[in-house]
């Protein structure tokens, strides 16, 4: 895989100089987004301003159709706004072309999906290994990091299982390990617990909280799961494509993450 040197950054985070603590992970400014189907123009985001700090677990919450996924996609650099500015990890992403955006995601952003989105033909180990392959991490380093990541999500014994041989909760753990393994500066999760029962959901929430703390990563989750809101450092409520004033989450300091791993 060839990369333009212009956007080439140290592939994975740990040795890389993090954007300074003072600098926010994401700055969204005056962002508009609407979907066109035929002549019909459906505005989904109508002027969103948002600052997401690094080292925080932030939750975008709101009713179905309010635009959470749309906003998350913009932050994750897999979609572009119609209007407005987006600065992700200090980078004006509006100026990047498709390849540069791809490389930026590869090097700095991890995703967790509602439907897990594991590659069915790869084992748990290989699924976690894949982002490191994309980033060109050498074999030994890869091995070490994949094992550590699977260890951290409690799946050291299921390395060779294919997704079809894992439970929903286990699949989401693999997906979380896959997002964390490259030590990105920003991780995005769209309704990561929506396809899990409450018990598994709770475990996943706790796991994400723990890992977020361990890795000091900016973690943005869209959800209407109240458990998640309870664990969040910040909650950003969205209604009809607009952000309401942030909800204070006074409980967050008091809630200790259940130790899972």
């Amino acid at each position, binding site marked *: 895989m060839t990369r333009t040197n212009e956007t080439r950054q140290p592939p994975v985070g740990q040795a890389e100089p993090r954007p300074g603590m003072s600098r926010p992970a994401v700055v969204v400014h005056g962002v508009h987004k609407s979907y066109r189907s035929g002549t019909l123009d459906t505005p989904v985001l109508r002027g969103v301003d948002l600052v997401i700090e690094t080292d925080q677990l932030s939750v975008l919450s709101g009713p179905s159709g309010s635009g959470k996924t749309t906003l998350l996609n913009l932050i994750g650099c897999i979609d572009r706004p119609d209007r407005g500015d987006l600065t992700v990890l200090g980078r004006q992403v509006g100026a990047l072309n498709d390849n540069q955006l791809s490389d930026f995601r590869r090097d700095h952003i991890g995703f967790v999906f509602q439907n897990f989105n594991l590659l069915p033909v790869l084992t748990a180990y*290989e699924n976690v290994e894949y982002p490191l392959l*994309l980033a060109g991490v050498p074999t030994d380093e890869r091995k070490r990091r994949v094992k550590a990541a699977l260890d951290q999500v409690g799946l050291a014994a299921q390395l060779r299982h294919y997704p079809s041989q894992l439970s929903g909760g286990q699949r989401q753990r693999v997906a979380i390990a896959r997002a964390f393994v490259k030590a990105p500066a920003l991780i995005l999760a769209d309704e990561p617990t929506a396809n899990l029962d409450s018990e598994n959901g709770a475990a996943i929430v706790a796991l994400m909280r723990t890992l977020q703390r361990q890795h000091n990563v900016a973690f943005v989750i869209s959800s209407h799961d109240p458990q998640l809101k309870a664990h969040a450092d910040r909650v950003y409520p969205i209604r009809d494509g607009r952000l309401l004033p942030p909800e204070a989450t006074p409980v967050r300091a008091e809630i200790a993450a259940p130790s899972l791993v």
Partner: protein
Amino acid sequence: MFSLNSLALPLRNVMRNRRRTLVTLITLIVGEIALLIFGGYANAVVDGMQTGIVQQIGHLQIQRKNYFLLGTGSPMDYGIADYRKVIAAVEADPQLKNMVKVTTPLLQLQGIAGDFNRGVSRTVAGYGYVAADQNRMREWNEYRFPIEPKKIALPEGQSDVVSLGIGVARTLRLCDALTVPNCPKGEVADKNPGGKAMPDDIGALTELEAASPNLPASDGQPRLDVLAATANGAPNVINARVAAAESLGVKEIDDSYMAMPLEMAQQLVYGRDTPQVTSIVLQLRSTADIDTVRARLTRIIQDHGWDLEVLDYRTLFPAYDQTRGLFASIFGFILLLIGTIVLFSVANTMSTVVMERTVEIGTLRSMGMRRAGIARQFLSEGLIIGTLGTVLGCGLAVLCALAINSAGFTWTPPNSIEKIPLVVHMFNTPDLIVGSVAALLLLAAISSLLPAYRAARIPVVEALRHV
């Protein structure tokens, strides 16, 4: 043991939907087999034709300029007088020595053969041969056909003897004497009891020239009179024994063929003048050397200032290239049909694959795979299917070919009356295998190109929303 390489993912994806992959593979396999078996059969037919031609007329012939176009009817005007010098020059050439197997003179003439006492005669195409050389030429079998060399009917080392095509033998009513097959019974030999088939003056000539009258020889061999126009225009007659009748495989040739020793032919055409020939026939060890040998011969002819030209068997026997062309166009048609089926089959499979894996495309893109990476994934899958199909097809085609070649089938080619072995030639040149594999692989690649391109263009967000 854990590590993935870049082919692992496409390979596993190909194996994921085994049934669909198998159906696509079968299209490719059957297509490849069809191309190779038909191509191999066409090769064998053309090789067989070449073998037959080269055995009879050699690879190259040295002739007087324009003999081939203008002079075949008048060997007296287009003879090569110093043919012995030409043959000596060819045989002495160090470069030609290793490539040329036989160099032999040939005198072609038009004549009339008949038993004028019995009132039968017909025109013949006479060939003055060196029988031993002709027999060596019949051994040529570069393509290793499972056949034994057949000697010509003209005996070696005898001067007063001829052999006939079986058609000539029939019309001269020599069926019983020469044991010719397919002779209608009850046909009377002489429908002109008066022996009026021959003008009296020529009959008189016969009696003057003939060494012995037309009585059955002591060994029971029939005799014939052979008449030809001499170089100075007067007819010349020789009385000769008939050794045998043979089939040359083509009825038109069998109906006019007469072989005789070179000396007899020379005596018929040139009488007591300097004996000449119409062609010097060269047979090469390998057809591949033909251009080298031709160039060298042309050089030698130029250096000596001879008024000669070199013609190859393809010019001398135009049906060879026509047959090749016919098979090439049939092969092209089959390739077109198979190519179309392969194109649509692979394209359909790859489009379905892209559809089914749209979410996966979105996932890979969100992980940072570039568009080109996505395209490469699907292109690789198409190429893997193409490679598997063509390689398996090749393997099976080779097995089929071995089975056909050892089954001992025979067939009768068009324009021929002789059965020849039915075989498939796939390996004489790599062209067929390499060409058909390359063509189908290229088609598999082309048909994966569009689906792969479309996969790469799907916006990430839409790919992820796909259900």
